[in-house]
């Protein structure tokens, strides 16, 4: 299981890449995909939608169950990753390449952990 150092993490197992230009990419962690099992669908918001830190913005469906994905930041959806609609297995295969949304005009953040803190947190799960 990997924990890239350039990302920040939530307690609910999302990752966020905070870019220098004020935008952010959001996805689910390696731990999350491992826990969820084979993913077969993701329901994403639309560009222009508002997402709120700590609130659900998407859901992912595994063969077994549906799970909410919570946003690490508050802001506006600038882009969604269309590739995931056709190739949901990428969320399992490359969780840190498989961003769900790009967020801009960020006004708030959830409580975030760095890679070391998240790795320690996962060890207690």
């Amino acid at each position: 299981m990997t924990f890239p150092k350039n990302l920040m993490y939530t307690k609910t197992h999302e990752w966020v890449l905070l870019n220098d230009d004020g935008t952010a990419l959001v996805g689910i962690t390696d731990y999350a995909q491992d826990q969820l099992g084979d993913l077969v669908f993701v329901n994403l918001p639309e560009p222009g939608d508002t997402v709120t830190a700590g609130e659900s913005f998407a859901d992912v469906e595994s063969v077994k169950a549906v799970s909410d994905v919570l946003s690490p930041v508050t802001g506006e959806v600038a882009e969604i990753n269309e590739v995931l609609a056709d190739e949901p297995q990428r969320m399992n295969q490359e969780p840190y390449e498989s961003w769900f949304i790009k967020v801009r005009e960020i006004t708030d953040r959830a409580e975030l952990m760095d890679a070391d803190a998240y790795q320690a947190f996962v060890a207690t799960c």
Partner: protein
Amino acid sequence: MDAKKTPLYDVHTASGGKMVEFGGYCLPVQYETGVIREHMAVRTACGLFDVSHMGEILVEGAGAVRYLNRLLTNDYTVMRVGQARYSPMCREDGGTVDDLIVYKIQDDRYFVVVNASNKDKDFAWMKERETEDALVTDVSDQYAQIALQGPKAETILRRLTDRIPEKNYTALFDGRVGEIPCILSRTGYTGEDGFEIYLAPEKAADMWALLMETGKEDGLIPCGLGARDTLRLEASMPLYGHELSDTITPLEAGLTAFVKLEKPDFIGREALLAHATPERRRVGLKVVSRGIVREHQEVYLDGQPVGVTTSGTHCPYLGGAYAMALVRADIPAQGARVEVDVRGRRLEAETIALPFYKRNR
């Protein structure tokens, strides 16, 4: 209550099984390969399942057949030794206590296999109705059960024994796999050819290892409860608590072939006769929109609620989202365009014939 361990618990954890609680037992929901690969292995090669959680009940005595015919909706009058026969077990009001399989061991001895989550309820139900010449005993603790399922199952088994049940829904009570004595039954819950092996719990780990070793070259892999559920759903087999329940009759579930209304008397017969043409029935749904339909989701036709889904998932072999639903009986079982409310979103679906998947024989 703490979940019980099956005799294969240590085998599962050592092979990377992701353990969950189900029906009072701790069982693997999947192994490291994941549900989709496990599902595909069963459709194209072979999979091995621990189903030791299932309950086993003996019915013994000169009145066993009369007892079963009164207790169950199917007819057990004409049956050869070694045959297995599926049946719903109904309440007086026609609702379903459980669905089960009865094996005939001899004229006065029958072996009944019931769902894990219903075992205590079933045993109490059966025990209350026991007669002097039909005695009911819970023997669940004396049996582990391993299911070998898939098109390669027979090939694998033939390397380990020269006697296998030739016909579907038959069993050998004095079977042997390798050196291990067992009940060897040609049954399953996946929609594939396959075998269910009942054996002494202390031999279960040896049997599992023997089958895995023997089947490796044919692509045999261990499979968990996740694949068991996607396989049975793809093959459109009912699961108690979903397509059948205390408040769902077997006729509503479409199990007409297993309800012998022409039998003079059985528990639930009058209620079932009174509703022989049910107001709702089980249909198959193929989801047309992107997304997955799950259980307990409302089904709409022309904006009007017409029923509710009972199970639904992504079916790996067919490659799409499918569901079963109980809907108003006037809704066409094929070709009706409906909508399903999935957490506030309306997904389009179409009613299609059951089963979704049927193997080529």
